[in-house]
């Protein structure tokens, strides 16, 4: 299961259908359309992404995500309202103080720093370690490095230092590709991650396993109570099982008319099966009588 949790979405994205088609072709299973918000946003925000935007790709599961670019601390208060409208909430802090705040206290699913620019601060193990312990994962977006050489250099440096700071744990990789050409196949992304210093198995997790964890955790946060209960359906049996049970009940009733209902707990099913297969429905008494008769005729 491969995930690409960052495909930028804007109200007018002419390249988006091609990008989605390419992702489907490359073998991705889950894709998240990312709406970026910066500055102030209202409490009664409406998710502009439609719920099922690409029905022509049934194998691709499409989630809706928001990235809030954190410029000033006042934005932090309204974050909890966004949880209801989007499947994933990500934060993009722009300086180290906001990064510290995001890692230690703010409510989100992902922290995605823009690694294609020079960071004015060092990424420290203490700060990002706090985020990972809380269950908030860090994201590396690789598409910026595809066109621009300076961005590629910055991305390599920053990704390497992020991976060093986190010791390789808690990292997911996604594309942030605005065009189809910026997307790479999952195994190519894993190879790219080894360049930055991530080992092979951690790279595999970054594209598949850990991304799935992020999506499931986000779902649990929204649909379950204290992470314990999530009711999948109301417990009604599926149709085929219902029919089987009906037939069983009917058979039990028919045999019961002959010699009284079988006692509870006693399973007479195999016997009844054999009788039915024999073509005759013999009661136990009749069988005993036939056996006695056969014995006496055999003896005599």
């Amino acid at each position, binding site marked *: 299961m491969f995930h690409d949790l960052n495909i930028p979405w804007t109200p007018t994205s002419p390249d988006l259908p091609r990008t989605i088609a390419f992702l489907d072709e490359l073998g991705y299973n889950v894709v998240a359309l990312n709406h970026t918000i910066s500055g102030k946003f209202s409490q009664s925000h409406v998710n502009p992404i439609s719920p099922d935007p690409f029905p022509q790709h049934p194998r691709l599961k499409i989630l809706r995500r928001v990235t809030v670019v954190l410029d000033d601390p006042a934005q932090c208060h309204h974050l909890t309202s966004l949880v209801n409208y989007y499947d994933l909430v990500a934060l993009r802090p722009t300086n180290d103080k906001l990064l510290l705040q995001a890692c230690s206290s703010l409510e989100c699913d992902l922290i995605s720093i823009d690694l294609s620019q020079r960071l004015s601060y060092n990424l420290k193990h203490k700060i990002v370690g706090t985020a990972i312990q809380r269950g908030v994962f860090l994201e590396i977006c690789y598409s910026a490095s595809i066109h621009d*050489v300076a961005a*590629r*250099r*910055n991305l*390599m*440096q920053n990704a*390497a*230092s992020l991976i*060093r700071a986190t010791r390789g744990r808690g990292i997911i990789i996604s594309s942030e590709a605005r065009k189809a050409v910026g997307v790479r196949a999952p195994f190519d992304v894993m190879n790219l991650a080894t*360049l930055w*210093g991530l080992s092979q198995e951690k790279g595999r997790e970054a594209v598949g396993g850990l991304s799935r964890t992020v999506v499931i955790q986000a779902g649990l946060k929204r649909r379950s109570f204290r992470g314990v209960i999530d009711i999948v359906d109301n417990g009604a049996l599926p149709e085929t099982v219902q029919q089987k049970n009906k037939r069983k009940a009917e058979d039990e009733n028919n045999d019961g008319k002959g010699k009284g209902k079988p006692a509870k707990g006693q399973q007479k099913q195999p016997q009844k099966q054999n009788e039915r297969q024999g073509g005759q429905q013999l009661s136990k008494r009749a069988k005993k009588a036939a056996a006695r008769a056969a014995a006496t005729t055999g003896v005599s």
Partner: protein
Amino acid sequence: MEEPSVTPPKTQKAEPPVQITIKNPEWGYARLKMIYDPPYTAESPSYPPDILTWRATLTMCLTQFFGLMGSAIHIDILYLENDEAWLRLPKNDTTMFAAAVSGYVGIIEGKNVGFKTLGMGDFLMGVLGKGEEDALWA
């Protein structure tokens, strides 16, 4: 009049020494000297080389040897003094850095420039101490 002698307080039992093993140091430290041929005179405005010259020369050196990956090595310039610099870089990249720096010859303002490694190690104090040790016996 002297005070009556007071028995000294009972000495506390010495705590056992704490042992720490540093297995994977995060950073490596290097001390480099920029060498010019023909050398600068002391009054020249370009001497000692400033931090931007260091940054540009180091980037050029690493790009020449290792291309983009080389220029992406994270180097912190900790301190500059005359024509020496104290640098900090991630431990994994020290080998690449040492290789690039040792063989580099470039041109700045018509003069040939190269690096001389005065020390490289896992601990800054060790690297600096070694340089001071040489000065002691000179």
